[in-house]
């Protein structure tokens, strides 16, 4: 649904995005992470035909950027970094204007559908300028969906929203995912990226990595299992270290932290050894590195 080949953008001498290669299939929620100035918004603007790449090629929804820009604009939806609504106009009027610009046939029906879907129907006559930040964001999301695009670009959809509004927006993104739309999501919220995205790309002008959230963990960190014990953990270290697949065992407080190649295969042997040695085993769990750890490791 989205494919880029060595897409690059320079502003005069400043390199904003370099040799970006992405393949995003239909129906995927694709997270696009990176620090400020990493080229996220520039990439979104290139892929929505708002600005032209300096070099490289890309297709979005089957149309080539730079050659079929009008078609791309017809077939993608974009939520820009700021809602950019017409504050003096009503919510309904805001949407009706965009529905007409997007050549929607049944303008009133589509406007009503999305106002209801996003819980704004009762406030449809109110000026957008009177809305809270969360309501404005929802209205901007509705605007991006009026023409039923199969590809949706969401640039920081929950930035600046309170937790409740963020949750509503996230739930709506999940709903869009269930409808099978392809979603390109830029965010700084790593928890959000992990919860919503099938795959995540980390960019810092160059593409650093693309993988599933669990794939990213595996790439950067060995898998670790934590054994919570009711007795002294240090004495079990020599018992576990010689076992196959175990790379390292450390005693930390009342826990044993074991670095293991494949926990699914090797955990039963470790647990058996501990129990046979009389250990008071309380809990066993995988030590998960947060996406934040991974992200910071990648962009440092």
């Amino acid at each position, binding site marked *: 649904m989205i494919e880029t080949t060595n897409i690059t953008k320079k502003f005069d001498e400043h390199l904003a995005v370099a040799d970006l290669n992405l393949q995003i299939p239909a129906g995927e929620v694709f997270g696009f992470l990176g620090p400020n100035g990493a080229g996220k918004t520039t990439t979104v603007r290139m892929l929505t035909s708002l600005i032209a790449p300096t070099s490289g090629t890309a297709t979005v929804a089957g149309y080539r950027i730079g050659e079929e820009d009008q078609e791309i604009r017809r077939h993608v939806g974009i939520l820009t970094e700021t809602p950019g609504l017409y504050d003096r106009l009503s919510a309904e009027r805001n949407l009706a204007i*965009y529905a007409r610009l997007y050549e929607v046939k049944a303008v009133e029906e589509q406007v009503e559908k999305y106002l209801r879907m996003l819980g704004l129907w009762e406030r449809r006559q109110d000026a957008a300028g009177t809305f809270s930040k969360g309501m404005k964001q929802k209205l901007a999301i509705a605007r991006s969906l009026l023409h039923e695009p199969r590809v949706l670009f969401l640039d920081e959809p929950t930035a600046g929203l309170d937790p409740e509004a963020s949750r509503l927006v996230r739930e709506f993104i999940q709903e869009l995912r269930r409808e099978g739309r392809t979603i390109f999501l830029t965010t700084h919220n790593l928890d959000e990226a992990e919860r919503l995205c099938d795959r995540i790309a980390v960019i810092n002008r160059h593409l650093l990595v693309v993988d599933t959230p669990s794939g990213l963990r595996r790439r950067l960190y060995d898998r670790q299992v934590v054994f919570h014990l009711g007795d002294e953990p240090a004495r079990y270290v020599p018992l576990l270290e010689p076992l196959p697949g175990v790379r390292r065992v450390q005693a930390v407080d009342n826990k044993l932290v074991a670095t293991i190649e494949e926990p699914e295969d090797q955990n039963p042997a470790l647990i058996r050894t501990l129990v046979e040695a009389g250990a008071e085993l309380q809990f066993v769990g995988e030590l998960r590195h947060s996406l934040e750890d991974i992200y910071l490791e990648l962009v440092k």
Partner: protein
Amino acid sequence: MDKIRTIISKEWAEVFKNRIVLFSVAFMPLIFIALPVITMATTGSFADVPEGEFSGAELGVEGLCEGLSEAACGQVYIINLYTLMFMILPVAIPVTIAAYSIVGEKAARSLEPLLATPVTTLELLTGKALAAIIPAVAATWLSYVIYVVAMWSLLTAEARNYLFDPLWLIAIFVVGPLLTLLSVSVAILISSRVSDPRVAEQLSMIVILPLIAGLIGQSMGLILIDQEVVLLVGLVVAVLDAVLVYVGVQAFQRETILTKWK
């Protein structure tokens, strides 16, 4: 065409909710009607002025008063002076609307989602230009009609015919709209290149200066704006309009507007 209509209705819905813009559209025509009417009403029939005071030679517009009584000459002089102002009106009114049209959208951050729609640059600029031109021309024509009706009751029979001089009909109904297009094209062009709505508005006002110079020149008797002058101005402005519309579309660089303006 639908998209142009949508942009026009959007612009009007936004602009006419702005009281300052609404005031500028309504206030200027009122002034332009009131000034000549008050002048004419207070100077009366020119019957009590000393002999020779309102002769064409005294006013520096000899050609204008040929075959007219001094009283009618004074009235025709006022018609000539003030009717010219109706050429300034459609130039001044739309500048605020047009100057705000691009840079205002950018300042409100509504330009990016608008440019992401399948609207072409020509459609966008046409919609924005017409949204500024239509109310300006309509307000000018309406105020001209009111002006003619009011002046009719104050003029002598001799001077009344001058209200319908082809010179003014061409000036108001042909050259006026052409000048409006000129001022709007300049305003949109400037609006596409600067990043502050106030700068756009102030720079766009430059278009009015030659017209004001003409008005002052005529009032001082330095020039006489007659039918030939108006037709020549119309021709020059029509050519300028065509050039400016082309340049305006070419100068509207989506990428520059989105990425370089802060």
